[in-house]
């Protein structure tokens, strides 16, 4: 008597080998062996993804250890980034130059110092300014696509906006460097700077030089890059607002704008997720920013001062890092960048997918 062994498992129907007589032929055994092979290979590929993430984190942490040991947590708040040694005259307690027996000044060598504050500042402020510009336009455009535009207009407009996402960042970089930056330098920054300098309370916003390649330009380019992402996700989120909600609000006598505001309020967690996705892209953006941000490791309150973000620092200095400590410091910056972007992505995903119902991709 033969019976089909059916262990309780969640595997598919045909992957268990039945123990009946027809399984004895070699052809059947081969068929079920290929089953097993495909399953192993597919599981292996899926596990490969876990390995990729693990390798990323592990390699960065391992290679940044020399920098951890040298600087500790103070790395995140020090603002001096100096890959070279400094030779200067040795001074005694009163500030007088120490001289040796021949009357010559004694020099001392200060080792390189690395501090990530300028790049953390640059990333944070450029992302913040870019979002300030981008979010109102994105939400307005999303409302347009969902509430105003007829189907025939909404489709091509959506396509064009998604095409904006596909433009490689280096294209934005070149456009920003050769079109936007000179325009800002000649027409926008001098008058704005004059206003800042003259108004007593805003004096600290002014800058000595306005080259056009500064935090302001970087933020504008980032805003242009981030708008399509926020628009696309917001449009999807707003489309998911139930018809009953919209009709109910209108039935209670709300105007067009009041109803729209109600829609925005209803889907605020999804919209916040969309904004975080834009933030994640803005913070991680490398090439466009590296070309227009001015590439100076400094912390200045003025948006017209050159700055540096974490990714532009890596793009500029990594290939030419002058010492092991320099490379370890850069890797620590990369680790901070990775952790920050992972955090943003996780929170954004949880907000967009989880806020409301069970995660859409979880069910078959």
């Amino acid at each position, binding site marked *: 008597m033969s019976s089909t062994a059916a262990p309780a498992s969640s595997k598919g129907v045909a992957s268990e080998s039945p123990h009946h007589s027809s399984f004895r032929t070699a052809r059947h055994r081969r068929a079920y062996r290929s089953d097993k092979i495909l399953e192993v290979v597919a599981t292996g590929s899926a596990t490969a993804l876990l390995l990729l993430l693990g390798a*990323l984190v592990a390699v960065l942490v391992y290679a940044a250890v020399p920098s951890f040991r040298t600087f500790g947590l103070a790395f995140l708040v020090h603002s001096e980034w100096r890959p070279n040694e400094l030779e200067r005259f040795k001074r005694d307690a009163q500030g007088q130059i120490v001289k040796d027996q021949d009357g010559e000044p004694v020099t001392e060598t200060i080792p390189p110092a690395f501090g990530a504050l300028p790049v953390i500042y640059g990333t944070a402020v450029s992302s913040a300014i870019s979002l300030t510009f981008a979010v109102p336009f994105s939400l307005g455009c999303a409302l*347009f696509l969902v509430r*105003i535009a007829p189907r025939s207009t909404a489709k091509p407009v959506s396509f*064009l906006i998604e095409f904006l996402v596909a433009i490689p960042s*280096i294209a934005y970089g070149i456009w920003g460097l050769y079109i936007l930056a000179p325009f800002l330098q000649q027409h926008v920054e001098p008058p704005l700077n004059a206003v800042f300098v003259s108004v007593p309370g805003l004096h600290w916003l002014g800058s000595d030089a306005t080259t056009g390649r500064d935090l302001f330009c970087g933020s504008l380019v980032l805003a242009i890059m981030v708008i399509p992402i926020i628009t696309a996700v917001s449009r999807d989120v707003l489309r998911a607002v139930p018809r009953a909600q919209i009709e109910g609000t209108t039935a209670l006598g709300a105007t067009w704008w009041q109803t*729209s505001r109600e829609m925005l309020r209803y889907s605020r967690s999804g919209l916040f997720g969309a904004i975080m996705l834009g933030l994640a892209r803005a913070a991680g953006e490398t090439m466009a920013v590296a070309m227009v941000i001015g590439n100076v490791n400094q912390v200045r309150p003025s948006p017209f001062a050159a700055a540096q973000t974490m990714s532009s620092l890596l793009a500029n200095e990594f290939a030419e890092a002058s010492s092991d400590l320099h490379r370890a410091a850069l890797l620590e910056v990369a680790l901070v960048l990775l952790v920050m972007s992972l955090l943003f992505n996780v929170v954004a995903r949880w907000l967009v997918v989880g806020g409301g119902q069970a995660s859409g991709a979880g069910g078959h």
Partner: protein
Amino acid sequence: MWMGCIACAAIILGVLALVLWYLISIGRQSVNLAFFAQDPQPYGADGYPGGMRNALVGTAILVGLASAVGVPVGILGGVYLSEYRTRAWLTETVRFTADVLAGVPSIVVGILGYELLVVPLGHFNGWAGALALAFIMIPIVTRTTEEMLHLIPGSYREASIALGATKARTIVRVVLPAATGGLITGVMLALARVAGETAPLLFTALGSRLLTFDPRYPFPSLTKQIYDYATGPYAEQKQQAWAGILILIVLIFSFNLLVRLFTRPRQFRA
């Protein structure tokens, strides 16, 4: 207020038009046959500035190598997420990881490639660049494959198994062929994304001004060469950078158009 929303959309489209207008009009001036047929020549040499043939070929080879690794792993990973899902914790974790990896800044991927593939070999090489691009491709292809496979009705699989096919045969002969259009869409989206990437190649493949087919050494790519030319001091090379950008945008635009054509809504008769 609704006029404000229309204004927002108009401004965004206007900015897009502005960006594209400059890219197209300036790039158009330098695109000629020499651009495609010649390799770069240094300043002062005969035939300066030459063309960008090495970079076009380089990007094609790098993207090809990246796909050779990224597409199979991605599709198989998507098959696991959609068809097997034997352990719930593994499936959820892998799905989450794929989404998270898709958002990693590409320059960090380049740094990983440097530490793992350039340092042991002692010099920059094209394989490191190709594998860094594959790293970016895999999560994208995995997720789109899973989504596309979800669209195939369960009745296809049930019918196949009812006819006696094993699970592997069902997947390979029934489900995957039915989803071919969607799979190609996912792969092409990933290709378009990867072809435009610069940051992962900065310290893996490094770039080269020579036409080379050997990925064991520094390897040219279109994006890196555009970046070098654009930030360099030579005016003719800057013109070529604009031309290169135009070609890159045309490439990506055609990819996206083809993807739209492939994703015509299909009716599956269940």
